[in-house]
């Protein structure tokens, strides 16, 4: 295994974090980083996948699942997160829904200048809504996903996990 692969965030690790935290339903819309994770989730009988056609629907769906006693996770890209503003406000924050959002951090880089405005506005957007977030780039960061679940439950609020591993292990 190369050093790059060791450092990457693997879909297996993400799936393990979901299961460890009792996720029952994955409400999601595909992004460029999640295909391998999708295949793993699809093969796992303990997870119920709900594909939405617009990210805003994910927040209302997750709210219904949570009110009904289940543990959803929302899996979307940062572009869709920004599209979801009013649903996030009304259905997740407004109903005190303890849900983790795993958000593909398109355009993010810790090197040089960020040129993708999807990345430019992601953290500003989350800050505007008062949503706490954790950056996850590699398997070594995976415990932060559990931290997000614990925080969501404790605060009865959405908490975001920003997946900054574009084009590496998360997508293989």
């Amino acid at each position, binding site marked *: 295994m190369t050093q790059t692969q060791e450092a990457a965030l693997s879909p297996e690790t993400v799936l393990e974090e979901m299961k460890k935290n009792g996720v029952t339903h994955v409400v999601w819309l595909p992004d460029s980083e999640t295909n391998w994770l999708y295949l793993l989730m699809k093969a796992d009988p303990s997870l119920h996948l709900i594909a939405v056609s617009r990210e805003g629907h994910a927040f209302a769906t997750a709210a219904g699942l949570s009110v*009904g*006693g289940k543990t959803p996770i929302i899996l979307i890209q940062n572009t869709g997160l920004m599209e979801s503003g009013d649903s996030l406000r009304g259905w997740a924050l407004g109903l005190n829904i303890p849900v983790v959002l795993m958000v593909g951090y398109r355009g993010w880089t810790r090197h040089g200048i960020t040129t993708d405005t999807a990345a430019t506005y992601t953290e500003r957007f989350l800050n505007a809504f008062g949503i706490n977030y954790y950056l996850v780039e590699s398997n070594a960061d995976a415990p932060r996903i559990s931290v997000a679940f614990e925080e969501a439950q404790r605060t009865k609020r959405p908490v975001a996990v920003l997946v900054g591993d574009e084009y590496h292990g998360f997508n293989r």
Partner: protein
Amino acid sequence: MMQTAEMLKVFQQYRGDAIVIPGRGGRHWVNISTCPNRDVPLGDPAMGGHASFALGLALAQPDKKVVLIDSEGDVLMGMGALATIAEQAPTNFYHFMLDNECYATTGGQPVPNAKNIAYDVIARGAGYPRAYAFETLEDFSNNIKAILDEPGPVFVALKVDPEIENEPIGRRRRWQTRTRDQVIQDLQQELGIRR
């Protein structure tokens, strides 16, 4: 067209122990329902999301009937949800939609193409196995029992008279008797859900 309140009175006769999300029919339903702890009158958390919320609740509680009183403005705003609902195909989900052809709470401006949309056809095209449209209370009354006796998901479009509001929001009579937190707490207690 029918009156929303009259339609809801007929529905109440067949409601059984269904969970009801009254949506924009909430201000009438709160006075009609005989089982408030199974009602989820959330008002309007964010327009366009009621169907997705009801889907989530139906999937979480597959042994309970979940009835949504949606609106055409909400459906137009979140139309893609119909495809998700049809794909998930919860057999306990009953999707009613009030069609007053306008945005009543903002003064009655028409929704896009207000008089020419066949919502039942759209629902069927999105994959709902059953979809109906009723324009009169009589037709609705004659069919409601059979609709609820069959498995979902089912879509029912209902032409209703617009109840237009022009009062500024701050001056409108508040019909909710419970906070959203209380509504959710009551429902979860009723269903034995520990949160």
